[in-house]
Structure formats: C-alpha cells, structure tokens
C-alpha cells in the first residue's frame, strides 16, 4: 500500500486502500466447496484453489470483517485482526467480540506470536483478486505480520464486482464450516430491503447520485467500477455517476480540487461513511461547496463504503438509503 501516489491522494485514499485493498473486477470464484463425508473438509476459495482438511476447522483466526460475516452464521473465531480500532469501525457496529482475541487494530499489523498461541487451524480473509492476496497478506503489510499465513491455510471468498456475492461467499464458507445457514442469516430481511430499494429508485425517475470523499484539500469522487456496493446500487437501478478520469495510479477515485467541485452534478451526494461526518466538515468549510447543487440543497447522505460483509448490515443500509431516496428530489442537478 505504500506505492500509490505518495502523499498526493491524502489519507482518504490510503484508508480506502486499506479497506478496499486493490481487488477489482474478476468475479468471485464459485465457492462451491462442501464438507464431504468422513469429516473431510474442503472449500473452493477466492483464489480458485480447493483447500482441504482432514476435519472441519474449529479454531479460526479471521480478519475482523470476515469474522463479523461468519458470526452471523454462528461461527465464532478465536482471534481477529482489524484495519483500525474495532470499537470505531463502521463495519463492525454491534459485533460482539467478547471472548475473541484481538490480534491487531492497525492495518498491516498482526500480532502473529499471540495468534500462534491460539493454535488456529484456519485463517479467513477476503481474497483481493487485483492484488492476488488475502486481507492481512497484501503488499504493504509488515513482513512479520504476513507470517500469519504460516500458522494455517488461508481462505476466503473473493471481493468481486458485487457486495452481495461477497456476503454470499461468506454464507457458503460458513456452511462448510458447520455454521447454521438454514435460516440464511438475515437473508430474507436483506432481500426485502433490496426490493424496497429498487422500488424507491423506480419511483424517482432520473435521480442521479454521486459518491464522494472530501479530504484535506481534495474532493475525491468514487469510481463505481471498483466499489462493489456502488455496482450493486447501479444493478438495482440507481444512476450512480461514473467519473470520467479516474486517477491513473489509484483508479478507485477521481481526485478533484475544491476549484473543480462543480465538475459532476448529481441529485444526491453520498459521503464515504468511514470518515463521516469529518469529511462533511471538510466540505462545509470550502467556500465553493455551495456550487455543488446537491450540497447546497442539503441533498446528501452516506454510503457504506467498501466494508459490507453481512446481510444484516446491507439490509440496514439499503432501508436507510431507500428512505432517503424516497424523499429525494430528482430535479436538484
């Protein structure tokens, strides 16, 4: 993570890199492994390989998001490593990590010695196809932290072009691990939320949205192609605007200056929710902020940026967004 335009993009982008890694397009591999009989465990992981074990792994160390996803299906890891402080992470709201060892709360830093004392038999993290690495093993992670991979085999579903696929990937992994997926977690609730979202969008013809992250002296616009949930929103009918010139070195965003804030005009602004309301304050202070029509009209909310791993979170976010969209005005821009 050290080689993206150094110091240029600002921390917002670094954070995105941290959370989003550099995975991109290729869709998640069919994670159709199954726990075959005889106690033999096998799983087709995000990297396309099939991993097996003589018996179903029980002592799991996972990336915090992966852990949250597995815990929805009753699989509780023994240890987790997170990208930042667990209590503040927008993607870990309401996750009960009591009894779970926290092995790191800074991106790229995992206490492998402590992890070893947990004697894990499986490590779980997202597979970033762009970086060809699992969460916790990406480039930029400290070498001594990467030794986590020596403790057990590392698996996880791929971050593809849909956050739904990632959530489903974890459901599948949980099933092979003996989790209770019969109820489908909060799947039914999620599907209702999708319907509601689609209905809300359908009722607002011509409504456009723009996903942004103002930071320091920059006004960064998200590129939906690299944001699985924004691709989902587009699939469900919302017109999320696509910036024309993504940054060459870090195509997750097009970075604009405050002089250029009126480049893209949408009816609804979506702030990156990982550093909200800090990024709102940054924009508020810019004298040109009112040139963004949606901002001047107060038509803004947040979007769940790069962290969705659970049906329940996705359902909550979709219901909230549906409500905002129902009240939005397609004539702002």
């Amino acid at each position, binding site marked *: 993570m050290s080689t993206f335009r150094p110091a240029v993009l600002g921390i917002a982008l670094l954070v995105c890199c941290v959370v989003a890694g550099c995975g991109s397009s290729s869709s998640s591999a069919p994670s159709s492994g199954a726990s075959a009989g005889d106690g033999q465990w096998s799983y087709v992981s995000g990297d396309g390989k099939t991993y097996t074990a003589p018996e179903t792994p029980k002592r799991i160390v996972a990336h915090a998001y992966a852990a949250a996803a597995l815990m929805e299906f009753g699989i509780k890891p023994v240890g987790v490593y997170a990208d930042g402080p667990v209590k503040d992470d927008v993607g870990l709201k309401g996750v009960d990590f009591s009894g779970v060892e926290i092995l790191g709360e800074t991106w790229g830093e995992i206490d492998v010695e402590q992890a070893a004392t947990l004697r894990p038999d499986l490590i779980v993290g997202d597979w970033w196809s762009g970086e060809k690495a699992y969460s916790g093993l990406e480039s930029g992670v400290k070498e001594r932290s990467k030794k986590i991979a020596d403790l057990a085999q590392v698996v996880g579903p791929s971050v593809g072009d849909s956050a739904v696929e990632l959530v489903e990937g974890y459901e599948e992994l949980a099933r092979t691990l003996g989790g209770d997926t019969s109820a489908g977690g909060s799947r039914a609730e999620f599907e209702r939320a999708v319907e509601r979202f689609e209905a809300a969008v359908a009722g607002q013809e011509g409504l456009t949205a723009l996903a942004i992250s103002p*930071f*320091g002296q920059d006004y960064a616009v998200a590129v939906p192609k690299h944001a699985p949930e924004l691709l989902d929103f587009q699939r469900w009918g919302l017109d999320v605007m696509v910036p024309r010139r993504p940054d*060459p070195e870090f195509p997750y965003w097009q*970075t604009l*200056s405050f*002089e250029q804030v009126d480049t893209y005009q949408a009816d609804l602004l979506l702030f990156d929710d990982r550093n909200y309301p800090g990024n709102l304050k940054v924009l508020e202070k810019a004298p040109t902020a009112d040139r963004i029509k949606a901002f001047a009209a107060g038509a803004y909310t947040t979007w769940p940026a790069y962290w969705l791993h659970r049906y329940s979170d996705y359902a909550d976010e979709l219901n909230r967004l549906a409500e905002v969209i129902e009240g939005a005005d397609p004539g702002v821009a």
Partner: protein
Amino acid sequence: MTAHAAVAAPSAPAARSTRARSTGLLLAVAALVATCVLSMTLGSRPVPLETVWQALVDFDPRSASQEVVRELRVPRTCLGLLVGAALGLSGTLLQGVTRNPLADPGIMGISAGAAAFVVFGVMVLGAQELVAYIWLGFLGAALATVLVYGVASLGREGATPVKLALVGAAVTAALSSITTAIVLIDVDALDELRAWQVGTLGGRFAPVVWQVLPFIAVGSVAALACGRALNGLALGEDVARALGLRVRLSRTVIFASVAVLAGAATAACGPIAFLGLAVPHIARMICGPDYRWILGYSLVLGPVVLLLADVAGRLVLPSGELQVGVVLGVLGAPTFIALVRYRNLAEL
C-alpha cells in the same frame, strides 16, 4: 572574516553598489507581482484571464469561476505571500544569529514543537478544527523556541551559535520522539498529523489568512529592523560588543521574531521544508553579505519561491493538486544542490 568586516563597517565601500541592489530588489518585486498574477490565473480549474479580472474588479456572485478566484485563489495567494515572507525572513534571521549556513526553522525545534502540540491537541484535547491547530501549532513553535533559546543561554557566554545548534538538534529529537510515541498509540492522531504535516496552501481559506496576518506583519517589521544587529553579530561576539552592540538583547529580539514568524507560518500551513534554508542563500547570492539587504530580498523572494512551487503543484497532476510541501521537497533538493555547485555558499 575580513570580508564580513569590510561589509559591516558602515562607511566601507559596498561590494555591490546600492543602486545595483535597489534595481535588483525592484526586479524581485516585479517577479513577485508576476508570480501573484500566475497564482491567480493558473489552477486545476481553467479560468480565462478576463474572468479573473472581472472577479477582482466587478465580482458577479453567480459565476462559479469568479467565486473560485475570489474565495479560493485570492486567500491562497495571500497566504502564500505571508507564509513565504515569514519563512524567508525567519531563515535569514536564524542563519545570521546562529552563523550557521544550514540553519532553518526545521532545525531549531520549531516544526517539531508545532507538530508535537498539534498531535497533543488532537489526542488529549480532542481538537478537530484547523483553527485550533493553528493556535496549538503556534504555541508549540513558540515554546520550542523559548526552550531552545533558554537552554542555550545557560552558562557564561549566553546563547552561542554552537550551543544553539546543539540544543536545537536535541530539542527537535526530543519533541519528535514524543510526537512519534503519541501517534503510535493513537491512530486518529496519526491521521490528523499526516494531513497537517504535508505542508500546503490549499484547503486553508480566508479565516486562516486573517488569523496569521497580524503575527506575520509584526514579526516582519521586527525582522527587517534586525539587519544592523545581524551584521554586527556576523563579526563575532567580541567585535560586535566592541562596536557597541547589545549582543544578548539583539539575540533575544531576533529569536522572538523567529518564533513569531516561523510559528505562525508553520501553524498555518504545516511544516514547509527548504524555503527557510534556500531563500537566504539565493538572496545572499544576489545582494552580497549585508543583512539589511538580505532581509529585504528574503521578504520578497520567499513568497516568489513558495507561490511558484504552489502553482506548479496545481498543474502537474491531471486532476487534483499536489501539496506545495511535496513540490518543494522534490524540486528543492536538486535546485539547492545546483545552487551550491554553481557558486560556493557564503560562509557565515
């Protein structure tokens, strides 16, 4: 030493005629005006010259481009003028008073002091506003300067150049390690510090300009009045004293000016490297070793260099901007080496 003596003696024939120096200074002012025009007209948003002019003389609030000029570029240019002048002057003062050609606000603990206080404010006081950072940075810079000068003043000879350099390095190291210790514990503080520590004129708007204006104005007047004292100190303490200079008082005034100037500049924009180091040398190359002239030239050349670097930073990227601290860091080192190669730096 003899060369310095010749220059410092009031009646000695000047190395360069006053007329040549005045002409040079006028040219420098012309360059500054041209730089300001560039800073108003060039940026990540293409704005025609005509619109820039309209924004200044006949402002139409409905025009987004005119608003960009008036609300973003004018304050940014003003801030560049203030901070450039402050850093150029404080570099000159420090090099003169410490007789160290490598002195700049960075080695006197000033940047480190400001950074330590910003981080402390973020972690302990929960500061989030840029306005709060400015006061914290200012306080930190001032305290660091007082500390360096105070410790260096201990002992019979007072704050000699060597003691100042040593104490400056020690205080910088101490404050930096405190900052590092805090940011290692507190991730939020690290994020805030990174944002502040790049050094930029962007993202700071009119309120920041008004906030630092009085400090830099007062500091600049005080600095410009220090020329004679610096000329005296350049001769060495004993000669200066023999010439009737009150060495201790002069040093105190000079350090106070440095604290105000560099503190305000660093607080407003974050630490900006290289400027305080290079500008006095450029000035010295043009006008010779008389500090009264060096100060005048630094006052003008500091903003020229800073604003040119800032304009360059706005244009190099296909979209968005590069912070001026980064531009100066990247362009500064090779330029400085070229300068040194081209002509031997004056020994102080």
